[in-house]
């Protein structure tokens, strides 16, 4: 059971807190409210700030979150209503307005992310998604790093109470509870998710109590409208989390004085009585009254602070109006962080002679070699490490024995958690490289898609300030009689997202080389593993111990002059078999290009090959319709049309799921017969 009744030290009160601290807080609260109230004016004047979620009514808890945050030790994940949190954490009024009106000087990311998403990655005030609550997984992930590196600090995740309805929030808190991580989850409860009252979200009015059965977790309730109660709650939460190395939920009761945002009209669903009483409990007005009532400040002292804040906002406004806008030519900057550059194998080709190793050996040995190379490398996934078992296909066999449970460990069966905590943990320092087995089979990666998409955004959105250095391993494809959920090829979907690389080897040596490059690069790489080839003799090759394959370098597996075939993964071997057969039978010279890397794509090799042969066939295991081959075909027709002597054709799966019965599977997936038919037709065209 969670700890729910532990006492909270009353460190702050109107009577005991020193005057300078009270002054600082009043100044911040006034400054924040001036900015919050002013924000809609920028939209009215068509200057910007088209998304503004006012924080008024959350003043106490947001002040407290920012005040307990220490940029030297902690990580803060504010959500889109956390203006006061950000100011209190140290952002300036100018920085708030730069973000609001999306200037190039916006420290969150130069105007790339939505307004009202305040951040300063330089201080570990992280730039988070608009996808509400998804940063809880990042907080848990970086909390894992805090613990593993014995770092004295906490991760603080802040969110609205309605976002707790998201399944990944459960995953994050479950993980923090299970791993006993120093993470504070703050639920700012204003009673609404936009217009949806919290009774429509969950049965408990205090959603934190839904987690009361969790072990290793402390739950604290506080009045988020009250500065002192909020400060005492947050100080207690941080102290307890650090001392006990366990997570805390702080549920802060707030009021939302205004609409959810400027695109919401709360008068449509709140009556006058409610609108009146939320105004009555204005936290700033309450704090001001108490300063006077308990004679801590005189009226003229408060007025002077208010005047000072007004002058600051005026100056910040002027600076913001003079600040530069983002340069449209910069849009291609920071799409993905730099890849590792291979000096030994710049083309990703070798002449190594030695015993042939299976594809699974190539991956396993490279993982181990890279773990030896970089002590800040970690791997986790579902089913990845339990005694002699290392993954569903034993790809990670022996790793936990060699590198220990601190670096090689199982994850709960929660794909989004696997992906999201990778994104979080990589924030701790730039040397960290995370490898995740994204799902037991690529087919099960779909629950992780929201974190995958999120991760593709990070580098661009933060204007290069944060790069998630992650390799996502996925056992992919069919030909094992696996049916609908053990046969999918998902690269067609994954390659639509800027901000990731996608590689798909066919042979053991390329698997080893691409994996090494992925694990030494910055940014995210999806490493697709054709599971049907793990132990296939046809995919076994000699592998140099230090082999590296750069991204975006295709490999010509068989030179030819009559037709170019572009392929990858399982189908590479089928194409090579057919090409050899047609050479014997018909004397056809078919060039087989193993793409290896889909994103980035080796356009140069593709176009040069087409210019040489004049005909192109694209073969992949995924569906033809909307499969990755469509992109290759479009590239060829756009840039090499005048060299073509026939239509660009494609061979792939039918536009159906993959059936379980082997008869169905054979009818659906591409095979040598289908490839041969297509090649003969194209030869005769």
């Amino acid at each position: 059971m969670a700890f729910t009744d532990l006492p909270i030290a009353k460190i702050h009160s109107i009577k005991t807190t020193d005057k300078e601290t009270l002054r600082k807080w009043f100044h911040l609260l006034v400054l924040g409210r001036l900015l919050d109230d002013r924000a809609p004016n920028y939209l009215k004047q068509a200057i910007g700030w088209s998304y503004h979620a006012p924080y008024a009514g959350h003043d106490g808890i947001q002040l407290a979150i920012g005040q307990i945050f220490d940029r030297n030790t902690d990580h803060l994940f504010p959500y889109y209503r956390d203006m006061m949190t950000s100011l209190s954490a140290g952002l300036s009024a100018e920085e708030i307005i730069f973000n609001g009106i999306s200037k190039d000087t916006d420290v969150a990311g130069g105007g790339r992310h939505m307004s009202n998403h305040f951040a300063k990655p330089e201080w570990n005030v992280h730039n988070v998604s608009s996808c509400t609550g998804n940063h809880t997984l990042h907080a848990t992930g970086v909390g894992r790093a805090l613990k593993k590196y014995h770092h004295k600090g906490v991760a603080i995740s802040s969110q609205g109470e309605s976002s707790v309805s998201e399944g990944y929030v459960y995953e994050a808190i479950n993980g923090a509870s299970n791993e006993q991580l120093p993470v504070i989850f703050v639920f700012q409860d204003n009673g609404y998710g936009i217009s949806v009252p919290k009774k429509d979200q969950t049965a408990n009015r205090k959603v934190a109590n839904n987690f009361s059965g969790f072990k290793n977790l402390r739950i604290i309730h506080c009045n988020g409208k009250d500065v002192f109660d909020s400060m005492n709650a947050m100080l207690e939460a941080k102290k307890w989390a650090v001392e006990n190395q366990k997570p805390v939920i702080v549920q802060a009761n707030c009021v939302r004085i205004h609409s959810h945002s400027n695109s919401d009209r709360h008068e449509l669903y709140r009556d006058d009585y409610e609108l009146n009483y939320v105004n009555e409990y204005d936290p700033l007005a309450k704090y001001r009254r108490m300063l006077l009532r308990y004679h801590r400040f005189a009226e003229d002292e408060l007025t002077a602070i208010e005047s000072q804040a007004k002058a600051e906002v005026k100056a910040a406004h002027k600076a913001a109006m003079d600040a530069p806008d983002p340069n449209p030519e910069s849009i291609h900057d920071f799409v993905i962080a730099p890849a590792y550059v291979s000096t030994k194998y710049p083309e990703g080709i070798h002449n190594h002679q030695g015993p042939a190793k299976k594809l699974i050996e190539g991956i396993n040995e490279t993982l181990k070699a890279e773990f030896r190379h970089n002590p800040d490398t970690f791997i986790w996934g579902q089913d990845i490490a339990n005694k002699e078992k290392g993954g569903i296909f034993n790809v990670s066999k022996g790793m936990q024995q060699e590198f220990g449970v601190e670096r090689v460990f199982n994850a709960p069966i929660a794909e989004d958690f696997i992906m999201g905590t990778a994104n979080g943990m990589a924030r701790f320092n730039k040397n960290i490289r995370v490898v995740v087995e994204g799902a037991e089979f690529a087919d099960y990666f779909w629950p992780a898609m929201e974190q995958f998409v999120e991760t593709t955004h990070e580098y661009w959105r933060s204007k290069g300030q944060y790069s998630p250095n992650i390799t996502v391993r996925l056992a992919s494809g069919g030909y094992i009689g696996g049916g609908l959920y053990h046969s999918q090829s998902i690269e067609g979907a994954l390659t639509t997202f800027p901000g990731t690389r996608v590689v798909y080897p066919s042979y053991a040596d390329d698997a080893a080389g691409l994996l090494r490059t992925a694990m030494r690069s910055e940014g995210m790489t999806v490493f697709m593993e054709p599971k049907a080839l793990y132990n296939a003799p046809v995919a076994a090759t000699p592998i140099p111990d230090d082999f590296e394959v750069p991204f975006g370098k295709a490999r010509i597996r068989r030179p030819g002059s009559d037709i170019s075939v572009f392929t990858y993964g399982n189908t590479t071997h089928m194409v090579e078999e057919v090409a050899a057969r047609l050479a014997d039978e018909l004397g056809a010279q078919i060039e087989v290009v193993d793409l290896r890397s889909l994103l980035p794509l080796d356009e140069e090799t593709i176009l040069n090959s087409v210019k040489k042969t004049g005909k192109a066939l694209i073969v992949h295991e995924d569906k033809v319709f909307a499969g990755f081959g469509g992109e290759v075909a479009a590239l060829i027709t756009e840039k090499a049309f005048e060299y073509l002597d026939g239509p660009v054709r494609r061979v792939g799966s039918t536009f159906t799921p993959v059936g379980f019965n082997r008869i169905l599977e054979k009818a659906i997936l591409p095979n040598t017969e289908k490839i041969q038919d297509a090649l003969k037709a194209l030869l005769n065209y």
Partner: protein
Amino acid sequence: MKIGLFYSFHAKKTAQTAKRIQEHFSSEELEPVNAETVTPEQFMSFNALILGVPTWFDGELPNYWDEFVPALEDLNLTGKKVAIYGAGDQKGYPENFVDGLGIMAQLIEQQGGTLVGFTSCEGYTYESSKAERGHQFCGLALDYENQASKNKQRIADWCDQLRSEFK
């Protein structure tokens, strides 16, 4: 013994209840005091007090009482008898029914005051309440949203009870 009746003069249901309470006492017996501007001196000038403490939001004191708490924490209430009433919503907020009443009661006891005016929990349906002491509320619980028709009698019975308990 003159009784001080402390409630927010701008409140609706709490003030309505105060008005009914006043009907059961003479003006010589009862003196209304606005809780929004209450001072420690006013609070200490009575040995019998009735406090109108509704529950706001999910189980909080109203801001005007909350702002008085730091002052209350400095008062020695030994020898004072305090009765508390407050409205809640047992259907809309069943987890925190009349919590405000319970929070105030705890503060009064913490400062040495004696609580009077306990009432039975029978006839109410809720999940939990900080005002619950065994099978009794440590004051008068009213529910204008769901049991408005019972308020008049409950107030009358309570006032009769207070007459004897304040002696």
